[in-house]
Structure formats: C-alpha cells, structure tokens
C-alpha cells in the first residue's frame, strides 16, 4: 500500500514531538512542579490528618456529615457500619487516603468546573470551544494523558490529582452549562424586567434554578473520581487502588475483591448522601403544581 507519508518521515515526526515535549518538561518541569508544591503539601497534610486521627473520631465525622447531607438515620447507620467494617478488615489507611484524594479532586473540579460551566452558558462561542475539549477529556484513554503528566510532574499525588480531575471534571461543566441554559426563559425575563444585573440574575435565579442539574454533575464527578482512583494509583497515588493493582498482578482474588468492594461502598455512600442533599435543596418543588 502507498501512504502519503512514508515510514521514516512518520518516525521523524513522532521523534520531533517526543523530543520537543521532553525539552519542554526539562526546561519548565521544575518550575511547574514548584508551582504545585503548596497543593501537594496540603494533600499530604490532609491525608496524614485523616489517617492519624483516631478512627472512631473519623467514623463520627463521616456519620455526622452523612446526617447533615441526608437527614436519614438509615444512611447514617449504613455509613457507621461500613467504615467500622473497613477498619476491622484493615483497609483503613488506604480508605482514608482515597477519601482524601477524592475530596480534593471533587473540590477542585467544582471550583473550576462550575465557573467554566457558567461561562459556557453565557456565551455560545465559549461553548463551541469547550465542548470538544470536554469530549476529548472524557473519551481519550486515561493512560494516554498519564504519559505527558508523568513526564512533566513525575509520579506522586499532584499528577494523580491532575489525572483524576481530567477524567472527572467534564460532567460538572456540562451539567452546569445545561442547567443554566434550561432555566425558564420567562423567569429570566421577569428578573431582567425588574432591572436585575448580570450578577443578580446569576446568583438569584440561574444558579438556584440550575441546582438540580449542577448537583447531578457533582454526583457524577464524585463517581468518576472514584472510578479513576485505581488508575491514579499506577502513578503513585496512595489509595485503595494500590492493593487492587497488587491483586491484579499477583492474582490475589480475595485482596482484590475486598478492596474493590471498599471502593464500591465509598461510592454508594457518597452517591446516596449527595443525591439526598440535592433533593433536599429542591424542597420548594413539593406541591400540587409544576412551575
């Protein structure tokens, strides 16, 4: 077969890209790493805090947070039992490390994703630019972007966080954008007719009315971050993914199953609590009429 580009040119092209990126990461890698240092120290500090605190205290905190979010006795009981079981099965440290990185990742995704979603909703041009980027972030095999991330930042928590965020951020951006665009045009028009400024419209009308969708986005982001934990552990993130990886390479069935189930339990707790919280924010929708 005849290809327009021959084998040697193609190899040169690939080499060119590789060397260019290698030079780039050699020149700027340290500076970029230094830039992320505070983030890394914070993550280490949070993880150590959660691991070193007495486990009863941590279980109490989780139970309290579950109560705050869901107001459901059943969920609180489930949370307490699950974490106690995790402790007795000696998965506590990895679980705490997992919760720590998920929390930081989720907060990062919310902090960047919601404003980005708001911008997208405001301008069709931003939407046209961001949407394909989100598509790439969601579909590209995660191993592919692990390569440049590791080249640039080495292995450790920060590149792990980056990998998790790349994978987990798209849903919150998309659903914030969608939620705001779906806000009833008449209500928005009413706000405008009373002389609301852009800020007033955003914070009094658009975001509150988009909350069900934004919350669905937060929920999805948490779930996807948890799913990414195993892959992040390949680049040195301490989490439940590490024993899972060891189980894969050594064919330890029980080890893999137990740690895998611990991830499932975490996922269920996060999911139910955040969904219940999202529902409670929608109290005003109760009643006989649709608005």
């Amino acid at each position, binding site marked *: 077969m005849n290809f327009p580009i021959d084998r040697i040119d193609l190899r040169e092209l690939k080499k060119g890209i590789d060397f260019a990126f290698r030079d780039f990461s050699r020149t700027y890698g340290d500076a970029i790493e230094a830039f992320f240092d505070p983030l890394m120290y914070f993550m280490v500090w949070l993880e150590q805090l959660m691991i070193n605190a007495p486990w009863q205290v941590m279980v109490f905190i989780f139970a309290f947070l579950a109560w705050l979010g869901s107001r459901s006795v059943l969920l609180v009981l489930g949370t307490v039992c699950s974490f106690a079981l995790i402790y007795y099965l000696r998965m506590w440290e990895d679980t705490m490390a997992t919760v720590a990185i998920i929390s930081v990742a989720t907060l990062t995704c919310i902090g960047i994703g919601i404003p980005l979603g708001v911008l997208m909703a405001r301008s069709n041009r931003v939407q046209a630019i961001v949407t394909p980027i989100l598509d790439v972030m969601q579909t590209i095999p995660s191993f592919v972007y692990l390569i440049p991330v590791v080249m640039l930042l080495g292995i450790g928590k920060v590149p792990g966080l980056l990998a998790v965020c790349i994978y987990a951020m798209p849903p919150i951006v998309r659903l914030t954008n969608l939620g705001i665009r779906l806000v009833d045009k*008449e209500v928005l028009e009413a706000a*405008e*007719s009373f002389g609301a400024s852009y800020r007033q419209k955003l914070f009094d009308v658009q975001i*509150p009315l988009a909350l069900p969708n934004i919350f669905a986005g937060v929920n999805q982001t948490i779930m996807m971050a948890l799913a990414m934990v195993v892959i992040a552990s390949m680049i040195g993130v301490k989490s439940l993914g590490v024993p899972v990886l060891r189980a894969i390479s050594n064919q330890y069935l029980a080890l893999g199953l137990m740690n895998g189930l611990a991830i499932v339990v975490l996922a269920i707790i996060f999911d139910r609590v955040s969904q219940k919280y999202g529902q409670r924010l929608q109290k005003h929708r109760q*009643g006989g009429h649709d608005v």
Partner: protein
Amino acid sequence: MMSDIKVKIKHLYKIFGSNPTAMVNHVKNGISKQELLSQYRHVLGLKDVNINVPARGVQVIMGLSGSGKSTLIRHINRLIEPTDGEIIVDGKNVLKMNINELRDFRRHTLSMVFQKFALLPHYTVMDNVAYGLKVQNIPIEKARQRSQKWIDRVGLSGFEYNYPAQLSGGMQQRVGLARALATDAEILLMDEAFSALDPLIRTDMQDILLDLQEELHKTIIFITHDLDEALRIGDNIAILRDGEVVQQGTPQEIVLHPADDYVNDFIKDINRARVLEVSSVMDDKLIDHGPDIDINMVIEEALPRLSAMTAPKGVVTQDGKAVGSVCLDRMVAAIARPKSTSNSKTIYS
C-alpha cells in the same frame, strides 16, 4: 381629561432576521409582510407603530396571537431592541439609555406582569413580592416589610411562606401583581396577565386591578387578545394586526365605528350593552317626565331603569341637568348585533 402623555411610541419598527436595519427602508417603501419574508427572509414584527399612552390611564393593546402585541410591550422596557423608531417615557428616550440608565429605569419607573406568572419557584410568596425591591439592593428585612402591605392588598395574607408551586394559578398571578406593585413604579406593563386564568378567576383579577387602579392611578399598558377584557378595563384601546395598528380609540369609538372588517369581526360577539353609553343613542329633544339617566351610563344599566318604570323615554342628565332624552327602542336597536359588512370569510394569519 388626561392630557399629559406618559409613554410615547413613535414610528416603531421591528424586523426579525439576519440584517434587520437594511430591511427598514424596504418596509417604509411599502413592501408587505409576505413579500419581505419570501424575498428577503426577514419577518416583520412591528410596522410604524404610533401610540400615545396618557398618564394614569389604562391603555389596552389588543390583537390576535402573532399580531405583535407581546413584542410591542417588550419594547417599552427594552427586553426587545427595536429596529427603528423612538420610545419616549417621561420625556426621556428609552432607546438612548446606556446599560446603567436602563437598569435604573427598569428598577424604578416600570414593572411587568407576565402571562405565565414567571415567579421565582425557589422563593416564597413573600420573597417573590419583595424581589423587585431586593434587586434595588434594599435590605431584605425592609423589603419584606414593604411587601407585606401588597400581599395583604391582593388578598394573599396567610400565604406568605408558601412556595408558588403550592398555589393555584389565580393566586400565583396575584403574587405576580403584588410583585409588580411593590416597587411603586408608575408604569405597569401587563402582558396577557389574565389570559392563562379561567373565566371566573379572570373577572376576579380584573376587579382587583380596577379596584387598585381607582386608588393608585398608575399608567397601565395592558395586552390582551380578549375584547371583552379590553373593553372592560381599557380607557383607550389600540388594535394591532400583523404588527400594524389598525385602530385606536376609546371602547365606545371602536364599538360604534369599527375601522375595518378585522375590527368588526372582533366586536361582533361582544356585549354591546355593557360598552355603549347613553350618549351614543340620545337626542337633544327635552322631555318633561321620565326617569333620570346619566349621560355616561352604559345601556346595560339604563335599560332596567326604563323598563322598571314602564316608561318609553328617559331624561338624559349631565351633572344633574337635563340635556336630552333617550327612548327604549333606540337603546334596544343599538345593542343588537350589527350585520357583517362583508360576506366573505376572512382568515387572519
């Protein structure tokens, strides 16, 4: 009468499409709506609309759906930008305002009531009514205090802490009305405000509005497709068809002298007795005895007066003085449905 003009709409054009400004001249040169659409792919929304809205009166703008009435009312607070023309409110050109002036104008000078209520579903009744004040950055406690008066006024006391979804349609529109009144704006824009309500509730709301108007004397611009409603509450009526004003006048003038078949079709089914005043059927022959009937009384009220006394004629009075007479036959003749002026069935698009 009310001579000062509050809102002046001058030569207003609105064309929808990719290059509306280029189309204005075509329209001014008399191209039709259909031609504009087929030749240039632009939609004519409003064409040379001129309306003077007197202060402290109710100006009704009516037309069928698609006639441009909702588009027109949104020009007054510039929710829609016109293609050409002027809108003068209190001597100021609304279209020349910059974004800050426009915001202040919307906050203080006019407020709007919407067909589908457009309440904030996540706010209580109280906070919905206070919304206009909140937008003005009035502290929420003070805003709520001022809102309470209007909640009581529209008859929603006791529902302050309900959410809109928990109220019926009629109650929701009371919230909408209270919200518009709470800012003390002098101009009230009502976009088919009562059209989504069932007939009994609609009459109820009209009563509330007329009641309030007697006390507040706002300048109200009221959009409707219902002529009975227009005749009931309007001091002046402008009838819109395909974006053009086809007739303007008092309810009397429109019922007595419809400008064309379109208007005629509109008025043929209305209760004429409720609109026509004695002045339109009287003559100035003075008679000696008969029941007193005021010159501005509508025929609906005058008829039972005559029939109760089995008198064939009544004495028409103005400010207590006799100015003429009116006979039963002419009143009955006046309220009979007029014959259609054309036999062809007209279809309005």
